[in-house]
């Protein structure tokens, strides 16, 4: 198997704290495992060359995973394992076009494992997008939160789905799944299915799903201050997508995301 440089990875903090296993251009599979008690900040600014990404957040380590995509047609599978006391903060900014399928499975595999995963997705024209992020609480006192925010316009179809599963014995675990999509046009089609599967009593769990047009009260509030309806709609829409910027530290990437949002709106 050829070993090659990860040209798409722009930023890895503490370069001594990671190793890469099994990556080749032919199978497009990358596995990245953090060392114990390390800190990794990984930005992949174009997922095109990766079909499968395996992340292992080792004991006591913190992993920030920032993913950005704006290519056409992709199918990605991401598997994340968070071990005891490990923390994963995931950010996925999806501005891809056409037909896309993103599947992410997160395994909270040790006590106090913690994962927060945020998604911002824009579907327009005739895009068909499926974003599924599922999380399994395989151990006690684990914490998981998934927030998916999307904007769906023209004739696009956007589906957010995922299951947060707390297994029997994973006591004191906390899980939260939120999926919200603002729909612009009559021909747009959006689905939000944040599911909970709970096999333990002593836990905290919540989920929320919202699919709808822009709230009339929000629109009135903004226009009552002088903004035109078009400007108010744009501001509200950007409000769905721009919070993802918090997951991207580099100014040039932030600017690229802002341009992608504004360009496609």
């Amino acid at each position: 198997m050829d070993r090659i440089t990860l040209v798409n990875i722009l930023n890895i903090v503490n370069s001594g704290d990671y190793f890469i296993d099994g990556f080749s251009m032919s199978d497009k599979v990358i596995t990245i495992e953090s060392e114990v008690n390390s800190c990794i900040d990984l930005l992949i600014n174009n997922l095109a060359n990766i079909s499968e990404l395996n992340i292992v957040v080792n004991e006591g380590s913190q992993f920030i995973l920032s993913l950005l995509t704006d290519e056409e047609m992709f199918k990605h599978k991401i598997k994340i394992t968070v071990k005891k006391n490990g923390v994963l903060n995931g950010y996925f900014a999806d501005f891809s076009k056409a037909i896309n399928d993103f599947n992410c499975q997160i395994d909270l595999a040790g006590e106090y494992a913690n994962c927060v995963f945020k998604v911002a997705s824009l579907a327009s024209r005739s895009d068909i997008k499926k974003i599924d992020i599922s999380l399994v609480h395989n151990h006690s006192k684990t914490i998981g939160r998934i927030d998916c925010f999307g904007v769906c316009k023209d004739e696009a179809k956007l589906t957010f789905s995922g299951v947060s599963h707390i297994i029997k014995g994973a006591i004191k675990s906390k899980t939260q799944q939120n999926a919200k999509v603002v729909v612009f046009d009559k021909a747009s089609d959006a689905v939000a299915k944040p599911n909970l599967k709970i096999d333990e009593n002593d836990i905290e769990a919540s989920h929320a799903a919202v699919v709808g047009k822009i709230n009339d009260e929000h629109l009135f509030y903004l226009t009552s201050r002088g903004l035109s309806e078009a400007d108010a709609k744009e501001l509200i829409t950007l409000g769905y997508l721009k919070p993802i910027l918090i997951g991207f530290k580099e100014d040039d990437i932030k600017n690229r995301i802002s341009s992608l949002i504004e360009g496609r709106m």
Partner: protein
Amino acid sequence: MSVLKISNLHAEVDGKEILKGVNLTISEGETVALLGPNGHGKSTLFNVIMGHPRFVVTSGTIYFDDIDVLALPTNERAKLGLFLGMQAPSEVPGVINSDFLKSALNARREKPISTYNFYKLLDQATKELKMPFDLATRALNEGFSGGEKKRNEILQLKVLEPKLALLDEIDSGLDVDAMQVVAEVIRKEQEKGRGFLIISHYARLYDLVKPTRAVVMINGRIVLDGGPEIFKRIDQTGYEFIKTELGIEIAKDEPNMNTVSIGSCAVKTGVE
């Protein structure tokens, strides 16, 4: 001088007539207390003036500076110099307070304000309102306490500098200190010649901002227009004198009953 002139205004919400012929004129620089029991049309009047889409004007006129307000969309009404400080300001997730305020300010300027000047203005206004600056950098009203939301309304008023501000129960949710701060800001704005039409159920705010006039709305109409002694009297004795002295029966604020049938009782059916 800017004048708001409302004539024989009728408006309804969800098919129910709320405003039944409102006549009211407010001149620039006046501070008018708008009083009345709950459910008699005070907030509806404010929403109709600003053009809330839920409220339908069936007849009557509103002119501001001789411009037909009802013919304008909401944002143009704001640009004319009208401002509504809301009773329950919306929480708008993701929209940053300062971004929103800057966009609102630029909407009424020919040349956009520079970032430096905007933040200077914002810094000054937040200090005056004793608001932490970070509220300006958070999502619009999201997670704000009741008092913070009301201060945020006054912050917007200060930055946007309207000619006439309609304040709908701006004192609800404010503690005693916050009320003093807000009243002080209103007093400074009064000195600049700004007009105010203020709804409050408590005399405390009126004592602090000293309205020049008081008007009372009953059953969707203005039935009394006079000096500040009116709100003092209402604060002490309530609205009973409207009935005894003016002979106006005050309709009770009754919540709409849900007319949807839930069908026959399953338990009763089971027992039978």
